[in-house]
Each structure stands twice: as structure tokens, then as C-alpha cells.
């Protein structure tokens, strides 16, 4: 039965930095005044480029943070906005509430400035941990002292709208009271060169809904403090507005272009309106995605007219990108802050850049809507919407309101089962192969091992050359494991169920290999030499986008990224979506790549072992590996409707953070302890009911020692610990998801009942062969550098 979960989520703090200001007030005043932040680009070499404009941030206090040298520009922007939002909210985070405060940040290209620095300035090791998106939320969590759910969303230009939505979902699920959410992206040569190669940059300042001849890139960050109304009220916080609901969908159409029929966008917009408990006529202002490309603007015109024409002729729409440029992963958060300020001050910022003739021409396209050319206006606003659409076919819409609204969020009491698995690993591909290799106790063959995908896989899943040649290895592994999990679960995607089937992709390093190679190529050959073919694969959600294109899954589709634990936090995320009725089946995945580039970077950090090694072997390095694990989760009703096999029941999860310098793990034991205790509590079991642990030891002392301390503390050396990395090596997110898959295959009896296990204390490690047949509740744990943890409890299906 469904229970209403319409906990009010309110906004209590705002922060922003963009090309038109270093704080919210400055940015909003300049936006209302129609002041442009677009100028000739200074931070990227634009020699011979047909376009040379950008909206760069000018701020000389970005380095006024601890250890600025260890932080990429993207995180500096995010820290600046987050600090402003925290101060604005007056939210004090201390030991009493830290575990109930989280951070979710969105980004498209993450620390790509550090990739450029590494490539062009002598390959310094200190740049490596700054390269990915993962570090952003870690820096913010550490600055703020937050110890709840800490992660990042990597859905390109829709990332930070999704980050706000996810935070509200978690508050409504009761796992947190408050979040610092938002997103950031820094101006960098990779996106500039990539959009240049796609001929998507405008020669003049971008002109959304007007000339629509391309985007102008920007940079910046937006940050929002979202908390439950009760929490805000209790501490007498100033409340800006409510966050009602959001709609998130996938186009399943093309990796860069939106669906011309606007289907995915319209689903997201309608879902946001419906779940918010309002009607299209109630939305008074839309802060549009409005990039200024012909394809975006055409599709968005179509979506807006289709949904609002009939009942909402007075709708106001503007694109603040005309002033701040397209800030990619930060766009959603920056535009959310603009939308919230518009709502609370009843002042709508304009879209600038219209001549008299342009305004006349706009008339036809705009119909009765006011697209706000050049001049702001005052309007009584009650409900406003912000749209974000992205590469990978990702769509997100969110609604902010002055009224509590009539939010129609619900939670079901159905059980959630693992019904299908897909495995790509250095042991080979396929679940059956994995079972055989584990039963034969196969070990990695070298200190750096690789999964392989090829013709056999393409033929098996009917992948045509025109499709698979577009994908890099990161995406290929994800598509193959995802297709296997769907096939195994017996889930058939149809026109009727496509929007109820979603996926959460988890990755630690994302497409860093493709990003690095793209950077290397343009650093050698110039900004004009970027590859239009490779650029779409530099976004973290490309893998999920391709899987959605191949399968036709049009539902919730998010890529989360915070280190190796992302392959397990994706499962926590997907579980929550099913519980909150945003999908009846979801894929939860973990994917990470090993390549020459990754091997070079991990070796430079001293993380790659000299030889094959097993858990608890001691020393610094691990066996570097890769792969992709996909896990199909379904609610009880849907699983029963097609007689799905139930490998195990997912009955509890937790995600925690105990921050240390990004790159380290030592000293974060408490994070793992909390994750285990919280997951057991959610499952409604006591810790002594846990029959076995599926851990994350990889042979590197720093990780293994921490795990031993915690397991000794909780299990006193009496519970067997299984380690999948003994078979596959350290595949980061792929291995975290594989821990869950391995546990499920054990509970289902698909793996041999006699398996290797460790009994660990701080003093001693013993390895034994144990009988797994009586396991009822098992725990899977995972960890990320920086101190983030995820834990999941699985139960045997009777």
C-alpha cells in the first residue's frame, strides 16, 4: 500500500557565482538589469577558433580556502557558492546533526582543468585526484562538516537540477534532514573544443529562442540549502520557498541531440507538475533550458507550447543563459537560484540580445507567451519551474513554490528484489562465466587486468556496428552488462512500460580515459582539433544514455559519481526510486575502466601493486582492474507479473561520509561503522543477525586495515568476510556493485555453497573455506577515497 510522503522540503539558503557576480545579490541584480557576462575568452586558447566568446567568472578570492593547491577550479567555485548558501541559511552543522546533513553536487566535466594542467604542466601527481567530478561534493562536505549522503550527479547539463531533486527524495525518504545541493563547472578547453567541433558554439553571444545559432559557454556554481520544513522551523530558519516535485526522464533517442518530438522533455515537465499537485495553468514562470542551439530551442518551444498553450496563455519564459552563458553541470543550480529569487521577489530576469526585428520575429514563435526579450518584469509569482536538458538524452524539470502545495509523493511498502545480473569483468563476461570462474577460484592474472568486450557480446545482444562503434570502452562495458541484467531479469521494454523503467549508473572515474585522450589531443594540436566524434563520450552519463538508447528505457536515468562506492550507492539510489514509485524496475550499476591512461595515473599515485595480490596481503598497491556490473531491481508486483527469479531481497541501505583529505581513506572508520549500523537499522535487524560480509578489501594496507578495525569492532572476528576483488581485482565501482551481485548469487544458491572467506581482527586474518548455505542476512560494504561509504543488507528469499 502507498503511504503519502509529502514531507515539505524548503529552501533556506542560496549561493551563486557566475560571470555576472560573485554572490547571489550581485548575480540577480545584474540578471534583472540584463547585464551580460559574455566576453572574449581568456582562459582557453581560442587561436583559429571560429568562436571566441565565453562567460567567465572574475573572482580573486577563490583561493581563500584551506589547501587551495589540492582543489580544482570547479570545486573552488562550488565551495564559494556553498559557503554563501550555508551562511545565508545560518545552518550550523556539528556532531549532533552532521549525520543527517548531506551534499549532492552536479557537474558535467568536473576537474577537467586539472587534466589539462597534468597534461601540459609536467604530469604532477597532485593533479590526479582533482580530475574527476567525485572530489567536488567531498570538498563541500568537508568544508561544511556534513556526514550524511555525499555524492555527485554526472548527468551533464541536467546534473544539478537532478541533484536538487535527489536531495528532496532522500529527505522525503527520511534518511536526511538537510542538504547542500547544487553544482559547478569551470571554463575549460575540453568542453570549449568539443562544442566547437560540434559547431554548437555561437559566434556572437548566444541568443536563446531568438537567433538560436549556438551556445556560449559559461562557468560558475549555484548552491542551495534544502531542508525539511520541520527542521527549518525548529531552528527558526528564514524560508525562501518550497521545493515541490521534479520530473526526470531519458529520451532514449540520441547521445547529443534532443528528441525533435520533445517526448522526453514533456514527460519530465508533466511529471514535475503532476507530482507537485499543481496544474499547468499554475506555473507563472519557466526558467528555460534555452541554450540557444536550434535543436534545443525548437524542442523546448514545442514542449512549452504543447503543455501550456491551452490553459496558461500568460506564461513567462526566459533563459538566463543569455547573461551567464551555458554553465553545463552548474546550469541547473544557477538557474534554480535565479528561479527562486524571481519567485520570492516577484521579478523575472529577461533574455537579452533582441533587436527590434528580433522582437517582431519572436512574436510568431512565442504565441501568447512572454519570452521576456531584453527587459525584466514584475509579476506576481506563486509557482515557477526550471528546466534542464542534457547530452545522453537526460531531462529534468523542477518546481519551486511560495505555497506548501499538494505534493503527491508516495512510498510503497512492497519488497524490492534483485531479479537480474549482468557482469563484465576481467574474468570474462556473463553471469554464468563469473560463477564458473569463482567456483574454480580464479585469480587475476596480473597486477593490471582488463575486461574485454567484443564481437561475441555485440552479436549476443544484437548491437549493430553503427551503434557500438560510437561507444568508448566505458560505455560499451555498461551497455553489455546492462543488457545482460535486463535479459536475465526477463524485463521487456515496451512502449507502455518504457517510462517506468530507469537506471542509476554508478562510476568512480567515469570516462576519464576519453577525457584525458581528448585533452592530450587538443593540447598537442590546438583547440580547433577537438574530435566531434569523441566529445559526446566525455560526459559521465554517456554510458547510461547509450544504454537507454539501446533499450528504449525512458524513465529515471541518473549517473552518480563518488569513488568506488558509487557502484553500491547506485543501488541505494535505485532502491529509493522504486520505493518512492518513480519506477517499477531499475538497473543499478557500477562501471569503471582500466586503460593505459588509468594505469598510468594510478601507478603515478603508487596504487598499482607490483604483482598479483589478494585481500589483506599488505603493502600499498592493488590489482587495478575494470568492468561493469548491472543489477536489476524490481518491486514485488512487477517481479511477480513476469515470474522473475528473485536472487535476494534488498532490505536496507545506508550512505555516510566521514571526511578526510580527498584521496585518503585512513581515519574514516566511523563512516563505515555508521553505514553498517544504519543499514541494519533500516533492514530492521540487529548486527548479530548478519551472517556474512561482502567487503571491499583490495590488498592495499590503507583500505584493508580500516576494514579490519571496523569488522573487529562490530563482528569480533566471528563473521566470515568475502572479498570479490580477490577474483577480479580492484574494478572500483564495478567491484562495489559486484560485491552485491556476488552476495545475491550466494543467497540464491547459484554460486557453490563452499566459498573462500576471511575471519578478520586487527591482530589476525585467517582464510577458510566456509559453508554459505545457511546465510539469511548478509551485508555488503563499499568505500571511496575521501571517506564516503555505502552499505546494503540483502536477505535470502524463502
Amino acid at each position, binding site marked *: 500500500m502507498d503511504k503519502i510522503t509529502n514531507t515539505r522540503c524548503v529552501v533556506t539558503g542560496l549561493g551563486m557565482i557566475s560571470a555576472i557576480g560573485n554572490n547571489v545579490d550581485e548575480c540577480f541584480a545584474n540578471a534583472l538589469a540584463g547585464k551580460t557576462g559574455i566576453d572574449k575568452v581568456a582562459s582557453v586558447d581560442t587561436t583559429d577558433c571560429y568562436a571566441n566568446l565565453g562567460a567567465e567568472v572574475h573572482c580573486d578570492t577563490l583561493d581563500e580556502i584551506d589547501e587551495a593547491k589540492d582543489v580544482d577550479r570547479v570545486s573552488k567555485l562550488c565551495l564559494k557558492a556553498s559557503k554563501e548558501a550555508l551562511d545565508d541559511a545560518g545552518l550550523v552543522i556539528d556532531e549532533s546533526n552532521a549525520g543527517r546533513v548531506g551534499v549532492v553536487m552536479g557537474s558535467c566535466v568536473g576537474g577537467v582543468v586539472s587534466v589539462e594542467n597534468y597534461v601540459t604542466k609536467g604530469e604532477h601527481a597532485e593533479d590526479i585526484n582533482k580530475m574527476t567530478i567525485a572530489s567536488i561534493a567531498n570538498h563541500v562536505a568537508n568544508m561544511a562538516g556534513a556526514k550524511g549522503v555525499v555524492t555527485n550527479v554526472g548527468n551533464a547539463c541536467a546534473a544539478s537540477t537532478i541533484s536538487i531533486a535527489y536531495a528532496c527524495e532522500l529527505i522525503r525518504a527520511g534518511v536526511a534532514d538537510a542538504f547542500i545541493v547544487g553544482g559547478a563547472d569551470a571554463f575549460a578547453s575540453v568542453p570549449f573544443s568539443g562544442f566547437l*567541433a*560540434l*559547431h554548437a558554439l555561437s559566434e556572437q553571444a548566444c541568443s536563446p529562442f531568438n537567433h538560436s545559432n549556438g551556445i556560449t559557454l559559461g562557468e560558475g556554481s549555484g548552491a542551495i540549502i534544502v531542508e525539511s520544513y520541520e527542521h527549518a522551523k525548529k531552528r527558526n530558519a528564514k524560508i525562501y520557498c518550497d521545493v515541490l516535485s521534479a520530473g526526470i526522464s531519458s529520451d532514449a533517442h540520441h547521445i*547529443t541531440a534532443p528528441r525533435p518530438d520533445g517526448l522526453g522533455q514533456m514527460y519530465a515537465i508533466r511529471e514535475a507538475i503532476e507530482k507537485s499537485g499543481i496544474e499547468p495553468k499554475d506555473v507563472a514562470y519557466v526558467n528555460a533550458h534555452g541554450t540557444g542551439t536550434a535543436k534545443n530551442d525548437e524542442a523546448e518551444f514545442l514542449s512549452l507550447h504543447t503543455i501550456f498553450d491551452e490553459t496558461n496563455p500568460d506564461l513567462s519564459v526566459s533563459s538566463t543563459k543569455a547573461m551567464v552563458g551555458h554553465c553545463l553541470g552548474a546550469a541547473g543550480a544557477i538557474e534554480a537560484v535565479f528561479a527562486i529569487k524571481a519567485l520570492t521577489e516577484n521579478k523575472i530576469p529577461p533574455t537579452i540580445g533582441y533587436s527590434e526585428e528580433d522582437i517582431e520575429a519572436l512574436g510568431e514563435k512565442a504565441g501568447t507567451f512572454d519570452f521576456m526579450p531584453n527587459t525584466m518584469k514584475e509579476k506576481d509569482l506563486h509557482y515557477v519551474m526550471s528546466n534542464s536538458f542534457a547530452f545522453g538524452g537526460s531531462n529534468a524539470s523542477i518546481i519551486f513554490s511560495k505555497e506548501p502545495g499538494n505534493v503527491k509523493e508516495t512510498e510503497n511498502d512492497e519488497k524490492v528484489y534483485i531479479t537480474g545480473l549482468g557482469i563484465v569483468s576481467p574474468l570474462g563476461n556473463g553471469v554464468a562465466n563469473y560463477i564458473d570462474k569463482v567456483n574454480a577460484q580464479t585469480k587475476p592474472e596480473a597486477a593490471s587486468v582488463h575486461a574485454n568486450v567484443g564481437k561475441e557480446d555485440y552479436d549476443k545482444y544484437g548491437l*549493430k*556496428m*553503427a*551503434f557500438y*562503434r*560510437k561507444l568508448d570502452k566505458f560505455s560499451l562495458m555498461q551497455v553489455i552488462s546492462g543488457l545482460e541484467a535486463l535479459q536475465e531479469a526477463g524485463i521487456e521494454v515496451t512502449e507502455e512500460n518504457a517510462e517506468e523503467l530507469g537506471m542509476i549508473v554508478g562510476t568512480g572515474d567515469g570516462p576519464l580515459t576519453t577525457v584525458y585522450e581528448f585533452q592530450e589531443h587538443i593540447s598537442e594540436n590546438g583547440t580547433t*582539433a577537438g*574530435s*566531434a*566524434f569523441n566529445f*559526446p563520450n566525455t560526459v559521465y552519463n554517456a554510458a547510461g544514455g547509450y544504454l537507454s538508447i539501446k533499450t528504449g528505457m525512458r524513465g529515471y536515468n541518473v549517473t552518480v559519481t563518488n569513488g568506488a562506492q558509487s557502484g553500491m550507492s547506485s543501488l541505494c539510489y535505485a532502491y529509493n526510486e522504486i520505493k518512492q514509485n518513480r519506477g517499477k524496475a531499475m538497473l543499478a550499476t557500477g562501471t569503471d575502466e582500466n586503460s593505459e591512461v588509468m594505469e598510468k595515473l594510478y601507478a603515478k599515485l603508487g596504487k598499482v601493486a607490483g604483482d598479483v595480490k589478494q585481500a589483506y596481503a599488505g603493502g600499498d598497491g592493488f590489482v587495478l582492474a575494470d568492468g561493469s556490473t548491472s543489477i536489476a531491481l524490481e518491486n514485488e508486483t512487477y517481479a511477480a507479473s513476469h515470474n522473475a527469479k528473485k536472487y535476494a531481497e534488498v532490505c536496507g541501505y545506508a550512505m555516510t561520509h566521514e571526511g578526510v583529505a580527498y584521496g585518503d581513506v585512513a581515519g574514516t572508520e566511523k563512516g563505515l561503522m555508521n553505514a553498517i549500523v544504519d543499514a541494519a537499522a533500516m533492514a530492521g535487524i540487529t548486527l548479530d543477525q548478519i551472517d556474512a560480509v561482502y567487503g571491499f578489501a583490495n590488498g592495499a594496507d590503507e583500505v584493508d586495515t580500516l576494514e579490519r578495525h571496523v569488522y573487529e569492532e562490530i563482528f569480533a572476528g566471528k563473521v566470515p568476510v568475502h572479498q570479490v576483488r580477490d577474483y577480479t581485482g580492484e574494478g572500483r565501482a564495478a567491484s562495489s556493485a559486484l560485491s552485491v551481485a556476488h552476495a545475491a548469487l550466494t543467497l540464491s544458491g547459484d554460486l557453490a555453497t563452499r566459498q573462500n572467506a576471511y575471519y578478520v581482527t586487527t591482530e589476525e586474518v585467517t582464510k577458510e573455506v566456509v559453508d554459505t548455505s545457511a546465510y539469511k542476512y548478509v551485508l555488503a560494504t563499499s568505500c571511496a577515497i575521501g571517506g564516503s561509504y555505502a552499505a546494503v543488507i540483502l536477505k535470502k528469499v524463502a
Partner: protein
Amino acid sequence: MNEKELEIAENIKGMLSKNLRIPEEELDYEVPLFGDGIGLDSVDSLEIIACIDSAYGVAMTGVAKEHFYNIESLTKYVVANM
């Protein structure tokens, strides 16, 4: 195709294979590159234009579709405009 054309065609084939990850065995000089043939799309055409510009200094932006039909037609366009 004459010897010079064959050399250029072979070079274009190599670029298509390397930069667009089309398996060499799928490519000959006649196979249609777009539509039902190899199945290239508009993003691929941008890559082809960039490659040909960089290798031969021949600008193909805005050039009629038929010149992109196959490797042979690309080659002929390059030779005529070098």
C-alpha cells in the same frame, strides 16, 4: 580511380576506420557511408569534414550531400578541390 585517387581513398578509409571506429573490413570505396550503409550520422560528418580539412586543406562545410556518399565521392571532391 587513378593512382593518386587510390592513395587518397586509402588514406580517407584509414581515417574513417581510426577516427570513427569503423572496422576496416566493413569499408570499401563504394559502400554508402550514411543511411543504410555504414550508418554514419551528422556528428560523424563533422569529423569527416575536420579530417579532410586537416589532411588536404579542402573545406567541405556546407558541401552537397552527394559528395559524402562514399569514399570514392569524397576522394573525387578532394581531388577536384585541392
